[in-house]
């Protein structure tokens, strides 16, 4: 199978900047060559027959052939086998792509009409900027090379006060990484990648979101680890240091009445403890058990009665829907994550 590596010589694809991208390109090469062969067989046959059996006289006699079981079996079975190879290969690469590494660096992505925001664990927040000429500089996500990154993404409204406005769908697409994931308001979606090439790559929004859809650009800059560590601390311009997401979450825990019903040391109060909550197995009064992940915690904060943990009474906790902004919800979840 020597032709596969040579086949993905960037056949119109952007440079591959992750290992997964290389795997996608091998599969793409296989698909290109298989389709080219099928196309040549079909069109070659067509051209040959059209030329050879062109009408000579007005009363040409033609063969009366109604079917041929062997031929029909062959041209059903061979495509079937090829399609199954494509499917299995595609599913395997897809599962690798969707595998979320445990040790990944987490970055929060917020899509809003029509811009990107990236928030790092230490509270560093990246937004787009405008240069001296008034031209937009897209938000730039900086990540270290060869380290897995996990993005936790959601979409928010531009103006929370506007009742008519809606947070809408977006999609996070990095062509050089061959990854894409829709961003859905009201929940977290996630994706991961491990960049293997340094450089700056485009992020496109690929789910139609209105007027500014085509200008909703971002960039990802892959740098080496040392440079990243220096960058992520932020500039030392003397201002007060940003709180990390978890620290902000702890503030909310104290000031927004969480502390009244949830313990941090494992003891049982009106509500379940937050200690060891993230990633634990939850059983409920109704419905199937599940592992506590970002989406579960978000739902429990905004609508606590949706799933009530076994042994606890319902209707004890007020809804925080509309009370906490998306970023604050994320901060509380980040705080819970630190309570191992």
């Amino acid at each position, binding site marked *: 199978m020597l032709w596969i590596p040579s086949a993905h010589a960037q056949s119109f694809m952007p440079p591959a900047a992750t290992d997964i991208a290389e795997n996608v390109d091998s599969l793409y090469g296989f698909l290109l060559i298989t389709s080219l062969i099928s196309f040549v067989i079909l069109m070659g046959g067509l051209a040959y027959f059209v030329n050879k059996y062109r009408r000579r006289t007005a009363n040409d006699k033609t063969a009366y052939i109604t079917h041929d079981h062997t031929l029909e079996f062959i041209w*059903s079975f061979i495509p079937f086998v090829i399609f199954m190879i*494509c499917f299995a290969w*595609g*599913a395997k690469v897809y599962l690798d792509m969707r595998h979320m590494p445990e040790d990944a660096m987490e970055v929060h992505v917020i899509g809003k009409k029509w811009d990107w925001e990236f928030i790092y664990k230490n509270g560093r927040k990246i937004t787009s900027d405008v240069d001296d000429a008034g031209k937009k500089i897209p938000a730039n996500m900086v990540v270290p090379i060869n380290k897995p990154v996990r993005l936790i993404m959601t979409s928010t409204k531009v103006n929370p006060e506007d009742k008519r406005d809606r947070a809408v769908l977006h999609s996070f697409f990095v062509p050089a990484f061959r990854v*894409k*994931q829709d961003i859905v308001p009201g929940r977290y979606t996630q994706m991961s990648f491990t960049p293997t090439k340094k450089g700056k790559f485009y992020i496109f929004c690929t789910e139609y979101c209105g007027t500014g859809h*085509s*200008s909703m650009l971002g960039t990802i800059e892959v740098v080496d680890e040392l440079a990243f560590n220096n960058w992520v601390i932020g500039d030392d311009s003397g201002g007060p240091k940003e709180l990390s997401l978890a620290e902000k979450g702890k503030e909310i825990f104290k000031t927004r009445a969480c502390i009244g019903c949830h313990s941090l040391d494992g003891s049982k109060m009106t509500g379940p403890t937050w200690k060891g909550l993230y990633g634990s197995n939850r059983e409920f009064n109704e419905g199937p058990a599940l592992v506590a992940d970002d989406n579960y915690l978000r739902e429990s904060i905004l609508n606590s009665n949706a799933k009530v943990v076994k042994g606890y009474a319902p209707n004890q906790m007020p809804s925080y829907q509309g009370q906490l902004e998306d970023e604050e919800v994320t901060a509380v979840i980040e705080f819970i994550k630190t309570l191992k």
Partner: protein
Amino acid sequence: MAGAGKNYLNHEKGIMSWLTSRDHKRIGLLYFYSIAFFFLLGGILAMLIRTELFRSGLYFSPDLYNRFMTYHGVIMVFFVIVPGIPAILGNIIMPLHLGARDVAFPTVNLMSWYCYVGGALLAFLSIFMGGADTGWTFYTPYSINFSGANITAALAAFVAGFSSVLTGVNFVATVHKLRAPGMTMNRITLFTWSLYATAILQVLATPVIAITVLLLAMENIFGIGIFDPELGGDPVLFQHFFWFYSHPAVYIMILPAMGVISELITTFSRKTIFGYTAIAYSSLAIAGVSFLVWGHHMFTSSQSEVAAIIFSVLTMLVGVPTAIKLFNWLATLYKGSIQMQSPMLYALGFIFIFTIGGVTGIFLSTIATDIHFHDTYFVVAHFHYVMVGGTLMAIMGGAFYWFPKITGRMFSEPLARMSWVFIFIGFNVTFFPQFVLGAMGMPRRYADYLPAFESLNQISTLGSYTIGFGFIIALVAIIHGALHGNKAPDNPWGSKTLEWTIPSPPPHENFETIPTVTAGPYEYR
């Protein structure tokens, strides 16, 4: 027959005799005029889109571009390609193929045209309400944003959907109840088989879009949370509902085209079709499987990995009956007597374009590559290759093939061939570069793009003008032929199906005496 020179065109006179006609051929022509009008409109919008994309930067405002893009999609899908072949060619030809005097429910047939017109009026109304800008997919929550025009445009699709359901019910009943004596199910034409499979899809799938639009309206009017996350709804649920209809709708668009192609290939090869049973049943197989594959539009939507894998494998299964059809058409050419008349050129053009559309479909049903191609120009190119290159080539081929029967006159063959040259070449010049743009990562529905994508976009735009020119020539050929063409004989192509046994144009109730059928439809011996 009621005297020489009497036919369905001059049987009754006056505009009211057309607007209240229950003759399937006249209703087919009513559909032709209205669909041709919308096709012209959708085509102009297409060229406006391509003009905006001629260079990096903006000629129009993004909001205007988004409305061009939305109405191009809504018009071309719901008002041109979905009704296209069944409502025009199906209405006129299918009863003739069965040896029937009309469809089973002539009044319902007329009603379906009025539903189509009602939907069209709603679509116009939505333009005057500010214009919808959601794309033809109406995805929530965006479509909830500025509800008026968006909901009205969605309602237009809802009302036009009834026209589709009524046509479907009518065709199923007609095929089952109105076949001439001796016309068993394995003697009906492949065109009829394809319409039958399509009719089943129309009846079963269209109500889902109707329900979805109703839910959308209820959410807007009564504030019931269904799709809106702020009311506790799920926006992805809308995508499931939408594609549960719209994926089968893709086959509503392509199956009748395949039926037309089968008729053209056998006639112009003067040879019996290869694998009649395989082609007939593969239509039904495609129709059946098409209900189980909607999730392949949603690989990146946040549906589960397991769901994505199941939808991928089921989608691959659609490829098999599709490949079978292509090989059968090829085998029909073998040892035939092939005549390259303009309908045949369109049929061969269909096979060329549809093959490209088909193989690129595999790139999209393979999950790992779809993640990259999804919502890029690769998808735009793919579905235009299937739906436009496929269905439109078949409509044009079918229109020229049945033109002598419908009008009683011959069209100018050189003009028809010239239209084919421009449409076929223009089509490939327009859409092939879009595969490359998609692979490079250019997303769809972009009013503006990075300068790196410019040169291929320019080629594509020039191609679209070429297609436009080709359709103008085709229109000239049709109008000129209808007014000044030579009188057509009963059977100009030497076909074997029943419509060619009666005069051109056919009399009011088609057959003076209902024929008795003793053999299959393609007995070229």
